[in-house]
């Protein structure tokens, strides 16, 4: 007799592992731009994060008495790890990355029941926990033009070399916000963007192309039907709509929607964070609501809040609302669309 006896006996050639693998592949264009334009240290961070994630996953699986190999190789922990590495400053000390990853895997994922059970996006939990706990380290981004070899970068990450001032720049978003605040209305956005070398063609120098990389990867994921269009489109819509309104009202004090779209975690968030099926909404209308509000909240936090970017908190806030959103956005079923 066969190993199973329940229909259907045919299965499509799909698996969780393959889904996760494709998400990792989709991150490669962004990572390539990152390495090219920002620095190869991100590769070190990716390795550290991956190892920490697998270790945390293995320990938790063992403690929870779950099949080790099956879940270690499903790729979900590596996806979380890579997203954390990409969200953290590339020259963060190794232990910061490890703390973030372990927080995500152990607390945000396994304490809630492991794969598929976490109500919050693990990567965003890691980001939120670390930016609250280590605000200084989480705000130290490499200054532009910082010329360090991979070996030197590795030494900094490993804590073997002192953290020098030159490497602690700010993100373009942060630079803009700080400059506007210091200028107290005396400076305007177009001048700042034109004069500071931290800004590039349409957003942050270098970072804008990393975002383009995420966009390409995201479009590929959509084309592969790993993600649906609703959440990313709604997220981008929420973010750019608010940005456009304020920019149209006062272009001197508010950056353009384009700047916001290609800055910070906007596009990484749009295609790789809010699209997380486990912690996101699942219905057609729910995805639109979830994405739109996440985008809008992210904008509010990054422009008016105290943190350099708002994607993480926006996503977590919306994760909280998912059960409610899903409950109220159940689609009508076959034959029930026009109840008579």
């Amino acid at each position, binding site marked *: 007799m066969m*190993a199973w006896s*329940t229909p*259907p006996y045919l299965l499509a050639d799909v698996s*969780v592992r393959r889904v996760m693998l494709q998400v990792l592949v989709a991150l490669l264009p962004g990572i390539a731009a990152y390495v090219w334009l920002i620095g190869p240290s991100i590769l070190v961070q990716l390795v550290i994060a991956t190892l920490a994630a697998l270790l945390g996953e293995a320990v938790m699986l063992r403690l929870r008495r779950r099949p080790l190999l*099956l879940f270690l190789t499903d790729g979900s922990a590596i996806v979380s790890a890579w997203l954390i590495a990409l969200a953290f400053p590339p020259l963060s000390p190794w232990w910061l990355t490890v703390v973030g990853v372990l927080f995500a895997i152990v607390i945000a994922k396994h304490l809630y029941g492991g*794969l598929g059970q976490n109500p919050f996006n693990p990567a965003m939990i890691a980001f939120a926990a670390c930016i609250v706990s280590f605000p200084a380290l989480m705000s130290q981004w490499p200054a532009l033009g910082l010329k360090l070899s991979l070996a030197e970068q590795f030494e900094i990450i490993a804590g073997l070399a002192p953290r020098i001032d030159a490497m602690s720049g700010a993100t373009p978003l942060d630079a803009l916000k700080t400059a506007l605040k210091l200028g107290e209305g005396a400076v305007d956005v177009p001048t700042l963007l034109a004069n500071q070398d931290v800004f590039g063609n349409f957003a942050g120098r270098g970072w804008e192309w990393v975002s383009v990389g995420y966009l390409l990867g995201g479009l590929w994921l959509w084309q592969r039907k790993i993600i649906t269009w609703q959440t990313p489109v709604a997220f981008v819509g929420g973010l750019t709509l608010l940005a456009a309104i304020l920019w149209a009202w006062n272009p001197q004090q508010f950056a353009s929607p384009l700047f916001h779209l290609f800055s910070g975690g906007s596009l990484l968030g749009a295609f790789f964070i809010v699209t997380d099926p486990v912690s996101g909404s699942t219905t057609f209308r729910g995805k639109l609501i979830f994405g739109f509000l996440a985008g809008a909240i992210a904008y509010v936090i990054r422009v008016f809040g105290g943190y350099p970017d708002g994607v993480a908190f926006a996503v977590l806030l919306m994760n909280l609302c998912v059960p409610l959103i899903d409950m109220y956005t159940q689609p009508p079923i*076959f034959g*029930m669309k026009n109840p008579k």
Partner: protein
Amino acid sequence: MLAQLFRFKGGVKPQTNKTISVQEPIAQAPLPARLFVPLHQSIGGAPNPLVQAGDTVRKGQLIGGADAWVSAAVHAPTSGRVLAVEEHVAAHPSGLPTLSVVIEPDGRDEWIERRPVDHQSLPPERVRELLRDAGVVGLGGAAFPSHAKLTPARSVAMEQLVINGAECEPFMTCDDMLMRERADEIVRGIAIFRELLAAREVLIGIEDNKQEAIAAMHEAVLRLAPDYRVVAVPTRYPAGGAKQLIRVLTGKEVPASRRSTELGVQCFNVATVYTAYRALACGEPVLSRIVTLTGNVERPRNWEVSLGTPMREVVALARPRADTGSFLMGGPMMGFEIPDLDAPVVKATNCIIAASPGLFPPPPPEMPCIRCGACAEVCPHELQPFELYWFSRARNFGKTQEYYIFDCIECGCCSYVCPSHIPLVQYFRFAKSEIWAREREKQAADAAKERFELRNARAEREQAEKAERLARAASARTSEKKAPPERTNAVDSPPAAAAGEPAAAAATDADAIRKAAIAAAMARARAQRELAQPKNTDRLSAEQEREIAAVEARRGAQPATPEATAGAAGSGAPAGPQRGE
């Protein structure tokens, strides 16, 4: 011939694997040494056996008569001798036995007298009866008695009659071959159904991967009934589901809560229509069916197999390969593993697939649901299978019903695409059967509760009546005894005695009145208590209700109810022993 087609949402496109079994025409399967004809081959009532061991039967002779309106007759597939009417393993995933007529063919294959009828000369009710008695049931696999679907709704005109030749299940080609080879009979059969339903138009839906069948049907329609429309529908599983095909051809969506006739549409499988034609125009009841033998076999092909032929003998015709592990009845999406090849071919046996690990690899281990929503994308009924899965798993059956679990047609699309390899359909079947079981339990508990309350009410009433009787009797005695002393006093009694006697009588009377009053008060109090008591049985959990039902059942099973009788007789503590149980 240009028809506007509609889309149904969802669906999947598994490998069809159909070409292997359409290379040769339909062949007649040889008669086995023994036929095991189950009496219950359709949805609805089980027909009663009309023969017994030792009887000789002719081909086509009625051996099981329909016992209800939703039921269908069963006939002897050939002439021979009835060896037994006994339990025999059924073609069912459970492998449980069912009452079957065992026939030893005599090889002469002698027909009963066949009486062809002209359905147009008969009233519709008579035609429906004839179809029932000819054993015409849905041959698409559901085996629902066709005559029961052939009554149009009173208030809605029948707009479309949909004839289902879609055959969307992979591997299966029995309808394809039937349409290729016997298109004329099918088209003539459609006319019968169309007249019974007074349908305005006829739409014959065939998946566009069956070009030969489409051509054959088209040709037959042109010759015999030019106003029927043969429509090629896109090949996408489950396009052959009745509701999906109705949607594609008419744009109408039939929810689980309604009958399709209420929407002015009805759907029949091509093979069903074919058998209806044979039944009326040739007087031949349903004795055989086309079965696709395919899968891991040397010689895939369609066979016309006598009902009751053991699957073992049928399967041998196709010469299964050595690594065949098991056999499926039906298609790979909705079929089941045949637990025992001694089970016979029945009206629902449309396809037998030899399965091997190479053909149907065992599923990878089940992973947790990641809510990716792939299942919702492919669900043809636009349900949220992952939500149903969570609720089924959590045994939150109320929620599964809120999320329309009974609209699930168990097509298997969700399981097919699940990246976590969760056997979703199994969870839904589990939830459905649990809900049915609870429904039955609840009905039983409700009935028991009603019985209990009725009995209590009766006891109360009897007691109250008794108390009243006592009171009446007592007061009657009082007045009786009050009157006579005056008389005695007046006539001959001595004054002393006259003075003492009424006093004694008055004492006993007062006693009786007091007793009656107490009994009446107790009855009142009990009645009040009874009124108050339902409060704590109002909001019982299902668990508690089940317990109460069980207790009631136990009590019902006890030969007598001494406590209850004692209670009714007024022992003073009627509720005690019962509540304590």
